[in-house]
């Protein structure tokens, strides 16, 4: 969807070199773009703790953390894809497929329960990447197609959703999803480690540098000798892999491969990434911001639940309105930075 011609004319200055070289222009604008979501999250958390006794309890915060962990893992992969100038609409379906494969595989042991979904979902990501990088098809369309295909595959595996595969109660795999370490759920720890690794990968490695370069200006990156196609293929594979892992962990957490999961998850992930300060035009973005974006969306949802009298429909209204607000602000800030 994002026409390449736009990148040629507008993107170059916006791409920061990994390592945080300061750019020309207003530093305050850059700070607002990068940390706006964090400030909003802090304010919301303080207001929520003061307003509701039930908000700042260990149980409630633990619930928010665990339910954020799965979307956050998906959003991590999405961050790489979007920074690289693409988009991945297939993650919701891949998440559901990963869960079903993991639950089915868990009868053969933890290794199968993890490796099977990871392999299949990485393969879907690889196909996405190959189609995007080698044929020049719009990422939006390619991943739309794989969204349908992955959902179809999942339905075929479960006899149109009629079969639910269960995860054995006392298996090590179930512990991965339901266990606790120092009072915090295992999925939260796994997500935290993944985010640390993701941040290092994006900001401190040559691969991360290439992701920024390709997203900032594909032609220029190619001329400078960056392997454009390989970088794109890698980010889509990574996104598929992480969505599959999130699905598998979620299956372990729920003790079954639920077939109706993942609808609209790509939207949640994209929203979180955008709220976190990553530009949808590519070339600029932060792993940490995506994590904050997920938390912000989950806290909004939680606060609406706390209010109680508001039903879940308001969550969508508030999330939508919030997204509009953030996107308008980001566009405005982005334009100021480009002008500066």
């Amino acid at each position, binding site marked *: *969807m*994002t*026409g390449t*011609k736009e990148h040629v*004319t507008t993107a170059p200055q916006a791409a920061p070199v990994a390592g945080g070289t300061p750019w020309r222009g207003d530093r305050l604008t850059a700070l607002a773009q990068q940390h706006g979501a964090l400030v909003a999250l802090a304010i919301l958390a303080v207001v929520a703790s003061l307003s509701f006794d039930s908000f700042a309890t260990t149980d409630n915060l633990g619930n928010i953390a665990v339910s954020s962990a799965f979307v956050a893992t998906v959003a991590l992969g999405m961050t790489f894809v979007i920074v690289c100038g693409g*988009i991945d609409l297939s993650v919701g379906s891949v998440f559901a497929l990963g869960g079903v494969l993991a639950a089915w595989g868990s009868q053969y042991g933890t290794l199968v329960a993890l490796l099977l979904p990871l392999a299949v979902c990485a393969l879907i990501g690889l196909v996405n990447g190959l*189609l995007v990088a080698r*044929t*020049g*098809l*719009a990422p*939006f*369309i*390619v991943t*739309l*197609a*794989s*969204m*349908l*295909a992955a*959902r*179809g*595959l*999942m*339905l*075929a595996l479960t*006899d*149109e959703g009629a079969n639910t595969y269960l995860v054995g109660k006392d298996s090590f795999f179930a512990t991965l999803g339901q266990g606790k370490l120092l009072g915090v759920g295992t999925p939260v720890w796994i997500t935290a480690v993944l985010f640390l690794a993701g941040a290092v990968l994006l900001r401190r490695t040559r691969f991360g540098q290439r992701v920024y370069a390709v997203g900032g200006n594909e032609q220029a990156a190619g001329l400078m000798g960056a392997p454009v196609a390989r970088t794109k293929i890698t980010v889509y594979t990574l996104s598929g892999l992480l969505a599959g892992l999130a699905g598998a962990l979620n299956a372990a957490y729920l003790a079954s491969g639920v077939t109706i999961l993942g609808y609209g998850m790509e*939207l949640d992930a*994209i*929203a979180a990434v*955008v709220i976190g300060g990553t530009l*949808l*035009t590519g070339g600029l973005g932060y792993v940490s911001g995506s994590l904050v974006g997920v938390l912000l969306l989950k806290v909004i949802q939680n606060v609406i639940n706390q209010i109680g009298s508001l*039903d*879940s*429909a*308001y*969550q*969508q*209204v*508030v*999330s*939508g*309105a919030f*997204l*509009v607000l953030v*996107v*308008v602000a980001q*566009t*405005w800030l982005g*334009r100021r930075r480009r002008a500066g």
Partner: protein
Amino acid sequence: MTELALDKSMFADRHALVAWLQRYGVYLGLGVLLLFNVLFTDHFVSGENFRTQAVQVSPVLIVALGMALAIGTEGIDLSVGAVMALSTSLVSLYLGYGPWLALLVAMAGGAVVGLAGGSLIAVVGVQPIVATLALMVGGRGIALVLLPQLKDVRDPAMSSLGSGDVAGVPYLALIAAALALITGFVVRRTTFGRQLLAIGDSRPAAQLAGLPVRRVLIVVYVCSGVLAAIAGFLATARLQASDPSSLGNLMELSAITAVVVGGTPLSGGRVRIGGTVAGAVLIQLLTATLIKHDLPSSWTQIAQAVVIVLAVYAARERGKR
């Protein structure tokens, strides 16, 4: 007719073949699918089957018309499914004042969503996919706030609109065909249509040429919203119920598929309304065929995915003149 001629030397040039396939491939596919069904599907050639398929395809087709306009400007409208949901909620709430008023209110609702999307895109400069994504999330939320659960729609005028026909052709199909003709006329014969295509071809060039870029973009998204609202109204009449939580789900995908399969390039600058109609019918028929031959619905999704990729692949090289 000269363009349709299958000259052998033409196929020596790969680009010519690709261009031909992009333009007429959808009719070719539709022809093959029709032939297959006539030969191998029981009870395919019947008035009842024709009516069923026509009624089912009409809402998708109407939404696809608006989508074709948005894609023609190198944009996209992901909010159409949510607008259908909003429309069905509004119809339920205002049906007490008569179906015409309900339709008007629903169309106004669609226009407001389109206005919001168009303004974000044209004035603020937000990418179409993001602007309409936000409206998609918020729009369905508003629909559910207005009408929290499924509600039966009992109105004689609505039910005769949903199930009636003229000489075997359902009202819904007639309305869809009329809207397609109007949209085709607007794109081909009006100044607005030419401006729309010029913007899709190159927005900076259109701006330099002094075209009213902002106004045209906003009108395009308002049109898309209004068409989606009409589709929501008609779907409500057909189902005789308002279900804001499920009506229009994944509609944006079906509409985009119909437009793209019909030969409209995602890179903008060109709109094929005839192809969009054929694309919508092709997808409807493909689903119906797979179901009639007892293939599970999971396979229709996989088939749809393959069709999308093939169509876009065929369209990619000659996407732009």
